[in-house]
């Protein structure tokens, strides 16, 4: 009896092992092995479930459709859920917990994924096919991949940069009148100078971006951050709820200038608003949001093809329409502007800092000082 049970057990293990071995190549081959195979599979997959708000803005989606057809010869059916970061990652992670994967291509902050093995395990390695298959074929893809930080790879590629700087209304002030460095603020100059009293804006969620991120890598200590915030607040800024509202306040002329995320400013300028940006010469804090492909996506090849399309053709299109450039794209105005400021230090939170709670601690300490 014992011998029979042992044999049965052995047979079951053998069968399972054989099945697992047979399944492994299939598991490994979520994406086609060649460009042609990916293209072929993508056409068959048909529908892409995309979680990203940008294609819904200012006709970006329609331009994407035309450019995609020109590049690949077919038009995929894109089901767009214009969910914004960071709600997208919260929703996605919760859905995954109950066994649902509703996205093929997901817009999410890499910093909310990296550093957490349990979350990383939910995403496909997109770096390997992008590097091996798409980089040799598409210069834009290649250029971007070279600039994506190692800790974001292989799961995420940046498509949005939240870059800090100054925004100003060209009818109310000029670039020359604006501060040059952020360090001046600590000395009672720049927006902490009484001549700017009541005539500049900051956002409260940041708060006062880039101030909250000046702690990155120990660049400023918390006391210095607090001191600058107090100086800024004493100069009666107009405090807006988000960087979007800050942009709007400057565009409409409610105040002459502001500090904050400069993304989206160019779009307003192209619409005709008298608005411009200026970068600090000493510092630029950045936050990146990328696109990722979740494991269990129904259309992984279409998602990969679409991602490659976004990197090659999409990002320049977005910059042309919305004016939003991506820091990692060497073709973008943002990347070119940074080259003209060799002394500028780029600060970005690392996953280690975030997991250790450093980012939240700094923000909480500054938020406590906000009115």
């Amino acid at each position: 009896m014992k011998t029979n049970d042992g044999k049965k057990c052995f047979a079951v293990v053998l069968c399972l092992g054989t099945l697992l071995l047979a399944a492994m190549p299939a598991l490994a081959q979520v994406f086609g092995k060649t460009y042609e195979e990916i293209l072929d599979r993508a056409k068959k997959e048909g529908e892409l479930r995309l979680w990203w708000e940008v294609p819904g803005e200012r006709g970006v989606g329609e331009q994407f459709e035309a450019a995609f057809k020109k590049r690949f010869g077919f038009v995929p059916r894109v089901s767009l859920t214009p969910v914004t970061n960071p709600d997208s990652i919260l929703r996605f992670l919760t859905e995954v917990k109950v066994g649902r994967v509703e996205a093929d291509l997901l817009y999410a902050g890499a910093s909310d994924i990296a550093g957490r093995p349990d979350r990383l395990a939910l995403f496909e390695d997109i770096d390997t096919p992008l590097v091996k298959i798409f980089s040799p074929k598409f210069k834009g893809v290649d250029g971007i991949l070279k600039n994506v930080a190692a800790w974001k790879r292989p799961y995420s590629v940046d498509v949005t940069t939240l870059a800090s700087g100054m925004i100003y209304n060209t009818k109310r002030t000029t670039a020359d009148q604006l501060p040059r460095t952020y360090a001046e603020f600590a000395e009672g100059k720049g927006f902490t100078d009484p001549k700017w009293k009541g005539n500049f804006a900051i956002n409260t969620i940041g708060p006062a971006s880039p101030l909250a991120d000046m702690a990155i890598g120990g660049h400023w200590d918390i006391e210095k951050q607090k001191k600058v915030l107090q100086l800024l607040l004493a100069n009666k800024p107009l405090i807006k709820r988000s960087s979007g509202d800050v942009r709007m306040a400057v565009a409409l002329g409610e105040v002459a200038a502001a500090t904050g995320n400069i993304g989206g400013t160019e779009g307003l300028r192209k619409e005709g608003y008298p608005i411009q940006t200026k970068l600090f010469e000493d510092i630029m804090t950045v936050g990146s949001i990328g696109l990722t492909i979740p494991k269990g996506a129904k259309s992984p090849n279409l998602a990969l093809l679409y991602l490659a399309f976004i990197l090659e053709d999409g990002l320049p299109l977005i910059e042309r329409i919305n004016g939003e450039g991506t820091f990692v794209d060497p073709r973008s105005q943002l990347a070119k502007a940074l080259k003209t400021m060799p002394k500028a230090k780029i600060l970005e939170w690392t996953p280690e800092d975030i997991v250790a709670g450093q980012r939240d601690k700094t923000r909480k300490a500054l938020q406590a000082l906000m009115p």
Partner: protein
Amino acid sequence: MLFLTSLRPPSALPLDPGMSLDNFDTIFSSPRMLTVLVNTAIYGAGALILSLTLGAIIAFLVERTDIPFRSTIYSAMLVSLAVPTMLKAFGWVLLLSPGLGWINYLLRQGFGLEGASGPLNIYTMTGMIFVTGIGLSNNAFLMLSPLFRQMNPEFEEAAQTSGSKGLTVLRKVTLPLLLPGLLSALIYFGMVLVQVMETALAIGVPGGIRVLSVHIYLLTKAEDGIPLYGLAAAFGVVLLLLALSLMTVYFWLTRQQDRFSVVTGKSFRPRQLKLGRWKYIAFSFVMIVIACYAMPMLILAWASLVKVYQAPSFEALSQVSLHSYFRTLANPQVQQSAANTLTLMVIAPMLAVFIAFCASWLSIKRKMRWVEVFAITPMGVPSVVLALALFLIYVMTPIHGSIWVLIIAHIIAHLPFTTRVLSAALLQLHKELEEAAHVTGATTARTLRTVTVPLILPALVNGWLWAFSATLRDFTFAIFLMTSRNMVLPSAMWVLWNVPDISGTAALGTLYMCGFVFVTIAARYVDQRQRKRAGWEVG
């Protein structure tokens, strides 16, 4: 789900394991909590007094007096309900911001004032109270007008016949009879004011005034990083306890409900109070209030007509075009959302009113007060927490991502208001009306259909209109529960607002208003037909 979420450790995801009281600790141990509570009390009390006073006065004038253009006033009172609060607050900023406001510009020009800003400043506590109070007064009007309409004037006439003067009648007869309705409104708006934050964010934050809802929102949100919804849920738990306490007080005060029945088996013909020469003063007052509703909407309409916003002027007229409207209507997201919005708008308000009617009727006429408590419980839950709870519940079911999850969300969210409106109206119906129907052999269903529903139709119409407008202007559920399959117009508007596409958002907001005007007129037509049938004079 609310309690469970509130007990999650601060950095945990909703379905993560672990329990902690840290979220409650964060709320109560905040060093500036006292200032925040004082600000909240001043803001809440100020806006409550302003909204209820304006709502009650105008409801009285429209329903019980011979003020001219009553039907037009009624419709005008409701039109601004369709516009999302965030857009209305933006409209006020365009009017009264010290540096940008058009009214300030006109005042400076008109009075030759020096300087490039002021004299008025919207970013103050007074500004917040004014904008919120005005914004909620039409909600109060909706809640209170059926109470005035159903009041049997015989009670007041009896008091006058026995020699009581106007103010005495008001103090000793009218106000006590309105007590349940007024209490309902007071409790409802009190709770609403503690948790609303759009105006406080748009106007209070720039002015350095922080109230409780904004305080929690700012602790919860960051520009990147996962939002701390556990904290928002803990806030919801505190609000819920407050709401339940207030409801207990309400039930205690209205425990002898027959005292408040003003519609009895004896027929009555509501008589209008003749205002005489006061008619024009009252009319002017109402016009000023309506102008306050209209101004932010008109400036938004102006913003929708110019590609790049500039203050209204004769020179700017050359820039006017319908370009934003064509562009917005050609947007595939807007088009795609329209069909879903139609489904949502047809089903959600209707079901909300139906369920609210059942809950109110069971509570008032069958003494099952717990049903009403259950129906109004969502009042204490911030909509973002309710959205999260619904997401967590339905993510495990096939309806997740469908339009039905939005329908359910709106029904739950609108039950408190509609239940309050209908309970107040049902309290005014004496039990002898239904008893008489039963004596003649009518079933309960027939009694409801032929007696109860026709008598409270004004309240049903108002409840439906409010639920309709609230569904139309909601952003929270539309965004939080959004998928490609259930996108609705508010989600499309949110995308435009975030771009930011100022003229496109304003165009969509203006189209909302126009659509709501038609719906209000249609609802008013139904209401008037019923009133004519019942022998009311129609203005």
